[in-house]
């Protein structure tokens, strides 16, 4: 990858790049398809159900069937909706979700873009999806949708602040915003060199905030079906609805990969004697664990109340994340510098 990026850009290489990205797109789509399947399966098992088991072997084609269903389903746009914005919203939700994947590294050599400001890029682009949700809620011209959209916006911006500040500790330790450098800074050989132990506060805050950013249980208030029917996408049907879903799961992918990179040492082995296993395997293992963890808490935890949600974000996570930053900084000042 690196060698390509260092070559002068020609139309040919641009085309190759494009094709690679296309391949990657299908990988991601495949991930989403089977992530949904596994989510249903896992939750089913945890709740002593079986989960999807009819379509294909072990129900493995269930999601595929769902996608086809959505694709050929009639797509209604409410008469009172703001048509242009209504159409734009799901697209806008999806674009940043996919774009952030560009900067995620998988191994030392397997990555797409190697930006010096990778983390900032991720943070900046992921913020846009809030807009899409508000837009969707507003354009539907529906009370549930609007309230869901507003709630979602409030929640996402409230948790974005601790999320963003919690990674400052990681940046302090590595002195870079480049995700590859951040992984490189965790290469002590042992798992306690990974950021999640020195940055335990940051890590916890990051996980909580990330779950909230994903609008997943226990923070799924925007689409709380028992209160708001389906929240901001109540009016969406067919493939437009699918894009909201798709972007949510792409974000699951992104967050899982990002957590791996930032806190779990990326492709590094947990112990020196395990280093013979290829980095990509380690990465995928950690990645898979995070994804599983997200499903797990969905099955386990109830949805929390809106005032608790806000209170947690502003009164607990934000001060804590700042505390984490300064603890890290002081630690660096006392022990590492000079």
């Amino acid at each position, binding site marked *: 990858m690196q060698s390509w990026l260092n070559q002068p850009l020609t139309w040919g290489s641009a085309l190759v790049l494009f094709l690679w990205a296309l391949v990657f797109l299908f990988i991601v789509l495949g991930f989403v398809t089977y992530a949904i399947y596994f989510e249903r399966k896992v939750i089913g098992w945890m709740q002593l159900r079986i989960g999807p088991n009819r379509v294909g072997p072990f129900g493995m084609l269930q999601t595929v069937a769902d996608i086809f269903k959505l694709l050929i389903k009639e797509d209604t746009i409410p008469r009172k909706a703001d048509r242009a914005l209504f159409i734009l919203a799901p697209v806008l939700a*999806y674009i940043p979700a996919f774009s952030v994947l560009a900067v995620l590294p998988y191994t030392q050599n397997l990555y797409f873009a190697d930006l010096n400001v990778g983390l900032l890029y991720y943070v900046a682009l992921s913020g846009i999806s809030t807009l899409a949700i508000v837009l969707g809620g507003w354009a539907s011209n529906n009370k549930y949708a609007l309230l869901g959209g507003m709630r979602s916006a409030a929640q996402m911006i409230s948790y974005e602040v601790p999320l963003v500040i919690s990674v400052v500790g990681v940046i302090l330790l590595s002195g870079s915003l480049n995700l590859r450098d951040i992984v490189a800074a965790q290469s002590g050989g042992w798992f306690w060199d990974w950021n999640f132990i020195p940055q335990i506060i940051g890590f916890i805050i990051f996980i909580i905030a990330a779950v909230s950013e994903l609008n997943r249980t226990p923070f799924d208030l925007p689409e709380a079906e028992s209160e708001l029917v389906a929240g901001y996408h109540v009016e969406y049907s067919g493939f437009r609805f699918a894009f909201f879903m798709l972007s949510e799961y792409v974000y699951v992918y992104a967050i899982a990969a990002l957590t791996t990179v930032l806190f779990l040492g990326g492709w590094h082995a947990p112990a020196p004697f395990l280093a013979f296993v290829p980095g990509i395997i380690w990465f995928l293992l950690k990645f898979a664990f995070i994804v599983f963890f997200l499903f797990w808490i969905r099955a386990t935890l109830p949805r929390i109340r809106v005032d608790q949600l806000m209170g947690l974000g502003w009164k607990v996570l934000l001060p804590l994340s700042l505390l984490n930053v300064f603890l890290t900084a002081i630690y660096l000042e006392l022990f590492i510098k000079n």
Partner: protein
Amino acid sequence: MENYANNYVVVAVFIVLGILLPVVALTVGRLLRPNKPNALKQTTYESGNEPVGEGQVRFNIRYYLFALMFVIFDVETVFLYPWAVAYNKLGLFVLVEMLIFAGMLLIGLLYAWKKKVLKWNSV
């Protein structure tokens, strides 16, 4: 890396793909799916009843207050990031400076807390 800009080409490719997929998918979908709209289908959903009043109702002003808080604290990170990146190269003084800076913001947070901005009454 003499061709650093190439990384942004990659980013651009991703963004283009991000746009292309919905466009293609929705276009394909349009060809596949039926389209038989009628007035009943196109009404706004309100738990099966006829929709009452405006859809775009006024919502609680608290949302704005949170938006304000967000703007302030999000911008704080604009300063935190470069500070964090350069921290190792700079002296103790920057730590003090950032402590003051963050301290001010925390006072702001405390202020908001005391003024009951963070209290969420039901929506």
